């Protein structure tokens, strides 16, 4: 290939590469969120106030309150480890979520969310929330995602009689 057209193509390719790299980095900076466990968020609470973060935790069923007039959903989540390997050794995700909820000494986080109460919301469900930590220590969630329950660890049936 004669040098001139080749240079053109190489430059064009580099331009596109540069554009893509720029898009990735600027978008990452603009939208990256820390993904924290309840304990991590509570530890860093003061520095996290007002920052967009993502938190996961086990929903404590008893704590769920919902005001249909204001569509305000309040609940508490218990700390669940983020380490997949640890979850494995502890007996799987369902067991870990159960432990988190029944253990009274576990770190807790209060959450407030305004909107439609998700269908999957229930005791011991894993909640993944995006939002900001308020100065009052309550987490204000903008987005609330719940894990699809069919895919929890092999559930063993209850013993009959």
């Amino acid at each position, binding site marked *: 290939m004669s040098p001139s057209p080749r240079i053109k193509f190489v430059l064009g390719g580099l331009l*596109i590469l540069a554009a893509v790299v720029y898009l990735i980095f600027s978008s990452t900076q603009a939208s990256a969120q820390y993904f924290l466990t309840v304990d991590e968020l509570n530890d860093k609470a003061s520095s996290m106030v007002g920052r967009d973060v993502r938190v996961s935790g086990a929903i404590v069923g008893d704590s769920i309150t919902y005001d249909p007039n204001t569509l305000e959903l309040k609940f508490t989540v218990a700390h669940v480890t983020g380490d997949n390997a640890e979850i494995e050794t502890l007996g799987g995700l369902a067991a870990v979520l159960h432990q988190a909820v029944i253990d009274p000494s576990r770190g807790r986080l209060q959450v407030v969310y305004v909107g439609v109460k998700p269908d999957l919301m229930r005791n011991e469900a894993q909640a993944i929330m995006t939002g900001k930590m308020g100065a009052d220590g309550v987490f204000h969630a903008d987005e609330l995602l719940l894990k699809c329950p069919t895919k929890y660890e092999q559930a063993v049936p209850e013993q009959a009689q």
Partner: protein
Amino acid sequence: MFANFGYGTLVLTFILALYSIFASLFGYFRKNQQWVESARLSMQLTFPLLSLTSASLIYLLVTGDFNVKFVYEVTNRAMPLYLKLTSWWGGQAGSLLFWSWLMSAFATAVTLRKWDRDREFLPWVVIVSSVTMAFFMGLNLFFENPFETFWQTFDGKIVPALIAPARSIPFTAPDGQGLNPLLRHPGMIIHPPMLYLGFVSFVIPFAFAIAALVTGRTDDRWIRITRRWALWAWLFLSLGLVLGGRWAYDVLGWGGYWGWDPVEIAAFMPWLSGTAFLHSVMIQEKRGLLKHWNMILIVLTYALVIFGTFLTRSGVLSSVHAFAQSAIGPSFFTFIGVTFVVSIALLLWRWADLKSEAQMTSMLSREALFLLNNLLFMGILVVCFWGVIFPLLSELVTGSKVTVGPPFYERATGPLFAALVLLMGIAPLSAWGHSTWKTLGRAIWKPLTVALLFTAAATTYLLLNHANNEYLIYSIIGFGVVFVTACVTLYEFWRAARARSRAQKENFFLALWRLAGRNRRRYGGYTIHLGVVLMALGIIGIEMFQTETQRTMKIGESIEIAGYTIRYDSLAQFEHTDGRWVTRAEVSVFRGGEFLGTLAPRYDMYPDGQPMTIPGVRSTIQDDLYVLLVNWEGVNSQVAPFKVYHNPLVNWLWLGAIIFIFGTLVAAWPEADPEPVALRPRSAAAQPSAAD
């Protein structure tokens, strides 16, 4: 008994697949046709055997044998028959078997074709298919066995196992857990099989690519053979993605269809490289260029197909869809690593053989624009991959997990997608070889002018009605590229059909029909582009102009949005035949005082405690009015909370998808006999489109 039979046939098939691999290798290196033939036959045998395995599992599912762990997990007594059948892919172990079964079906179909011209490819196609099949069967055999049964040990514990643990007796649960009600939607039933069909079909072109590399037959023979496979694979994958989106829109109740969830992206990435591949191979066929690209793209597609399956199975990333974590993660990772490294090694070995047969001289030539196409698709792929990998990387590097959500993907891929839509409009008018702005301009100025007029009209409308919208400028750009491409594509149809109808003295529409029939690939392709453009229209509408509101109302009160008034009329609660408790509201929709209809959003509570919110939706060509009855604990028919979304233009998304699928069928259909050359129409004006 069936469980043991199923497991037995699975083991047998696994051994056969391993035999196929070794027999092929032996046959190839010893240049012994009999061994290769034996390998081919043994691979064909895997299909009936796996069908028996699958039939055993389906039998267990349908008869509700709750002694079997998988049956317990995904079915229950109350489920109707069709759901029990489809629960085959409703859980991890079953879906892995389904994958293997599909792979054996396609591999067998491929080996049944005439191999006279391509004898040397056969052993390698068998090897690649068998290796893939053996991997998935291995996962079933060693990690996720669908035929495991429950045993009750002497101390009362219930344990799943293949072989009875010491001092235990078989245990059968009285009923199963059943499939999550969210999965009981027609879209959700077809979505996994469609995706798997797409995934598995792409293994075939990959197998031929590897065969081409190994045997040194790096001309476009392998591409021609697998052209239709790739197209059908792509059709299924596209259909699977669209169905997933439609299901989310219908049933998940957040007014959207795509959440940039890692599992959605996992299925999207092979689609990206697959689409690039489909386009790029045309250039190799016509001009002998982009050979390295095609190899890279198909190798990537295979890796991404397995990676996609891996992401939904290993729990590596936390996402709404993620399957439970299990030990198969490392196996997947290793398999992808090894196959990718081997593929790249083969490619590097044959790098020189893949030299281009021609030169690319002009940046505006058709071949250059296809190269740009590849780059843009790869760019989007890199963005998606980055977004998915980023939490893992950040955890490794900084110790804390940092994620990116939809805003990242939208910001980073938006401009790239817009460029692609524009390219869809420009490329069909480009010429091979030497091209300048002038030649391109001459080809495009007519449809471009029409498109600019439409864009000006749209901009005026938007400035008058949506001046405060934060996405205003992006929507104008979006509409602009959509109009350009739509006008160019329709112009291409019109121009060719008009020329033909004049030359043949045919009615215009007959000419159009005959034209498409004679060149299905091109006109199927244009139809697909038209479908994409309409989908883009729908996406711009819903993403940039969606509005929402929520209000708790007493009966008789109303909520207003986007010029509509929705009045709460009544509430009913009753038990459905399948045991769920239904709370159903009736609302009336008005616009400007005119009564438009009633909607019935409802909230279902299933016996196992799983609730489901089903919206009441009024769909028209210009928008969707999407009304949700918000769930709440406790019954109060006097006051109910509602959430309403207004989704402008969203139905163009589904309409575009239908046209898209139709276009793919046109392109994939076997070519009709070509007419005599003398009657080929030539267009007088503008650049001729690529010769066939």
